[in-house]
Every structure is written in C-alpha cells, then in structure tokens.
C-alpha cells in the first residue's frame, strides 16, 4: 500500500484561533478514511488545505508526490474535491456545468462526452440533465457536486460530508459508490454520521479542537468504547438479585449495573479493559441455572467512543461552554 496523501505537520491559524494544530498522517491507495469530529473541530479546514483552497500556516500536504504549497495546480489536478455544501453554479444546467468541469479538467470531444456520461451514470442524474442547478432538490445538488468530483476519475477523492441532505436510499447509493471506487483510490470523507464510518470506512480518525485524537480501524475505535464486550442479561428481578453478586466476583468483570424497565431487569456486566467475558458469564448463568430472557454481547458504539474522545480533551472554548451550562443549571 503506497501513501497517496500525506499530511505533514499541517497547521492553520485564523488570527489567534488555531483551527488545525499540527496534524500528521497518511492515507494509502485502497483506504477510505473517515474524518470525524464535532462541528468546528477543523475537519473542513484540513480538507480545504489538502485540496489547495486554503494555504497552510505551517506544514504541508503531499498528494501523489506533489507538494500542495509548491505545486498546487498539480495537486488539484490529482484530486477530486467535493467542498462542504457542494457549491455549484446555480444558473447553469447540469449538463453545461459538467461540460465546463470536463473542459477545465482537460477533456475534449468524444473523451469529454464519455466522461460526462459516465459521471451522470454513476450518480444517476439523467432526469435532471437539462434543468438549471438552482431548481434542483438538495439531494440532486449534492449529486451534481459528487459528479463533478469524480468526473476525471481522480486518484484521490476528498469529500466533505458527501451524504449530507440525502435521503436514506440516496445515502446508501452514495456509500456503495464510494466502496466501489475505493479499491484503486485513496478516499477521505468527513461525516457526522457514525454508522457511515462503520459502513464504508476502512479507517477512521477523530479530531477535535484541531488535534488528531484517535486513528484506527472502526473496530479499533469500537474497542475503546466503555461498553465494548459488555454482556447484557435480561431476566426477572429475583433472578437478577441472586445472580449479580456472583457476576461481580467473576474473573475479568469490572462492575455490574442493574437497571429496570417495564418489569424486566437488565444486568450490564462490564469487563475489565474491554476483555472478553461472554463465555465466562454464560457458563455462570448455566451453572446457576438462572432463567434469562435474553443474553447478548455489546460491541459498543462509535457514538460512545466519539463522545468520550472528543469531550475528554482539555480544550478552551468547548470546556468553557460546558462549565457555563453546568453553572446555569445549578
């Protein structure tokens, strides 16, 4: 796997605000990198710098061997970029717009027609080809932006929230499109939707306050969830009371929480350090001959990991905001 995008100490300051703080990482061919972070974390700013729209304050990005600060036009030629909000020229028809993009990307004649047709095919834009873009629905606009970014079959795709504003069917379509293209490209997408990361990304990074906080496969990140490998047991209250002390003393168990809803008691057995306790717990349940309604293993949620990682950081503005809120409640 060769590195196609390398960020090297990428930093961007707007006045005194450090939007992106010394981010270094690389993305190789075949990878789909999910870029996660709260609003204002610096995701879009990072992508804008890689795409050559913003000039880094320090550091650089190298795309397909070209340095974006030294040779921006070569980098832009190698990248397909969907900016946040998918801006397009509203007064043009879809066809005229894609024709413009094809020409500025250096295609002519039959090749140009083929490229446009292919992009239209991939994101299914046939029905609106002759409509002006400003009359289209949000979903179609987003797809026009997507068509524009993949038209020249770029080696590197940078998509800032590609599925924002799409309905579930369209989301699914875009995700499978990304997965199809993934094998011979390096793709970076930013998203708020964590299920999307599990669905399409081979790797995810989490940034908050401009800093890179986590980097790994979606499974790696899941393993950092508090409830990763926790065992959930649903049973009657009496049985729960009998079982809980034994569970607590079981090897590898960190704690047992009890909760109740609609007459059913749930025991949540949390493992120490995310270890696997499923077999031990189910053996114990069988040995004690307890009647359970349900017993299953929780894999944890990215939501949980995301919240923990992004809220742990000792950061100025966000931490202040939380404090302020707490004070107001008190």
């Amino acid at each position, binding site marked *: 796997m060769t590195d196609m995008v390398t960020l090297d100490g990428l930093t961007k300051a707007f006045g005194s605000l450090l939007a992106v703080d010394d981010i270094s990482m690389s993305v190789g061919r075949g990878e789909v990198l999910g870029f996660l972070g709260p609003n204002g974390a610096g995701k879009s700013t990072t992508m804008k710098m890689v795409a050559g729209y*913003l000039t880094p304050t320090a550091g650089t990005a190298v795309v397909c061997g070209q340095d974006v600060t030294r040779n921006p*036009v070569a980098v832009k030629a190698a990248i397909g970029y969907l*900016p946040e909000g998918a801006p397009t020229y*509203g*007064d043009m028809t879809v066809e005229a717009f894609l024709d*413009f*993009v094809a020409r*500025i990307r*250096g295609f002519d004649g039959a090749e140009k027609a083929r490229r446009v047709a292919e992009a239209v095919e991939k994101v299914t834009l046939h029905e609106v080809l002759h409509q002006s873009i400003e009359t289209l629905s949000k979903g179609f606009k987003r797809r026009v932006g997507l068509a524009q970014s993949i038209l020249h079959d770029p080696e590197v795709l940078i998509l800032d929230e590609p599925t924002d504003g799409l309905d579930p069917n369209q989301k699914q379509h875009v995700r499978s499109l990304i997965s199809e293209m993934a094998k011979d490209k390096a793709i970076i997408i930013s998203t708020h939707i964590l299920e999307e990361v599990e669905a399409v990304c081979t790797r995810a990074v989490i940034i908050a306050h401009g800093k890179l906080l986590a980097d790994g496969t979606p499974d790696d990140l899941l393993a950092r969830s508090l409830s990763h490998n926790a065992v959930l047991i649903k049973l009657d209250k009496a049985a729960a009371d009998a079982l809980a002390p034994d569970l607590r003393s079981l090897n590898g168990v960190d704690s047992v929480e009890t909760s109740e809803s609609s007459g059913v008691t749930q025991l949540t057995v949390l493992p120490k350090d995310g270890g696997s306790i499923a077999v031990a717990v189910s053996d114990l349940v069988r040995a004690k001959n307890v009647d359970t309604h349900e017993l299953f293993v929780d894999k944890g949620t990215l939501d949980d990991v995301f919240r923990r990682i992004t809220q742990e950081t000792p950061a100025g503005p966000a931490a202040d905001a939380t404090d302020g809120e707490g004070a107001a409640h008190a």
Partner: protein
Amino acid sequence: MRNIRVIFWRELAAYFSTPLAYVFIVIFLALTGSMTFYLGGFFIRAQADLQGFFGYHPWLYLLLIPAIAMRLWAEERKTGTIEFLMTLPISTTQAVLGKFLAAWTFTGIALGLTFPMWITVNVLGDPDNGVIAASYIGSLFMAGAFLSIGSCISALTKNQVIAFIVASTVCFLFTMSGLDLVLDFFRGWAPESIVEAVASLSFLTHFNSISKGVIDLRDAIYFASLIVFWLYANVIVVDLKKAG
C-alpha cells in the same frame, strides 16, 4: 491559455443566462442614446461627429461598469463556489484573466450595439470615421480600466452592493482627477509636478485625447498599465484570502 478560454466562456455565458445582460444592454443603449440627443445636443450642434455621444461615456461607465464587475468575485464568495473554482486545476491568474476578459467582451458587445449611432451620422453628414473608430477603441479601453478596478474590488467582499459602491467611488476618483474639483485640492500646497501627476491619472484627460482621433502611445500605455495593475492586485487579493 486553454484554462483562460474555458473560464472566459463560462463567465460570458453566465451573463446571458440571467436577465442581467439584457437589462444592462437595454439600459446602456437607452442612456447613450438619450444623452447624445438631449445632453449632448446632437441636433443643435449640427455637426456630423459623435462628440456628444462619446463625451458622456465616462459618466455612464461610472455607474454601469461597476454593476457588471461587482458579481465577478463577490458572487462566488457569497455562494461558496469560489471554493469549487479555486480547487480546479487552474492558477489564480488564469481565473482572474478569464473572468475579466469575459466582462470586457460583454461590455464590448454592449458598446458594439451602439452602431446605429455611427450609421446615423454617416447618413446625416460626412463625419471623420477615423476619429469615431479611435473613440470606440478609446471607450473600450476606458471600460477595461473601469472593469479591472471593479473586478479587484469585487474580490475584497462577498457583498455585491458594497463592491458596487466602493468600485464606483474609486472609479469616480480616477475619472475626476483631471478636473479642478480634485486638482485644486493639490494646487494649494503640492508642487506642480504632483498636480501634473494626479491630472495624468485621469480617465477624462486620456479619453478626451483619444476621442479627438489621436491614439497616442502614452494614452494606450496608460489604460493598459492601469488594467494590468488592477488585475495584478486582483490576483493578490484572491491569494491573500486563501492565506486567511
């Protein structure tokens, strides 16, 4: 060259895809016409020339050219398409030139559509067509200078109204710098050479000499260097905004 051409055609098409182009052309023709006949005293002067026609161009341009130029960059900034445009594999200079040339060509089209005026004087009398041709060229150059100012200022803001007002004001200063209104301000204290320099910056001075039928190299260089200067500033403004 190719990139400039592609940007040029898109921008030119953009003028005609909205009512802007048609509104502009109609108003431009109506104003040039009425100014020639009423203010310029076309019939009263009873001379077969277009002095009355061209004499009002600087004042018309003052109002109309910033209206064409204001959208060039401010609109891209407002709608966010500037991010799309500037991540295409083109240089800032190519984008600036393509846009400017499209706006200039559009002005040229509007100016060209005043040809019935030229025909009219030829029907009514025997004008010096050389002078008229020179005046057309001078007018087009002056429009280019106004446009380059407008384009640069449009890149400074995302608000088209601000772009319009500021560009009009700057153009006004450039136009007026040949008149006593501005020159008297300098005469009181500045040496004659500075007064001369300020006067030499005036659109009116240079345009008037061209519209007398003499295309002096100095006047051509004046307008050309003004255009180059403002477009260069335009490139710098766009690049500076990238550095944020």
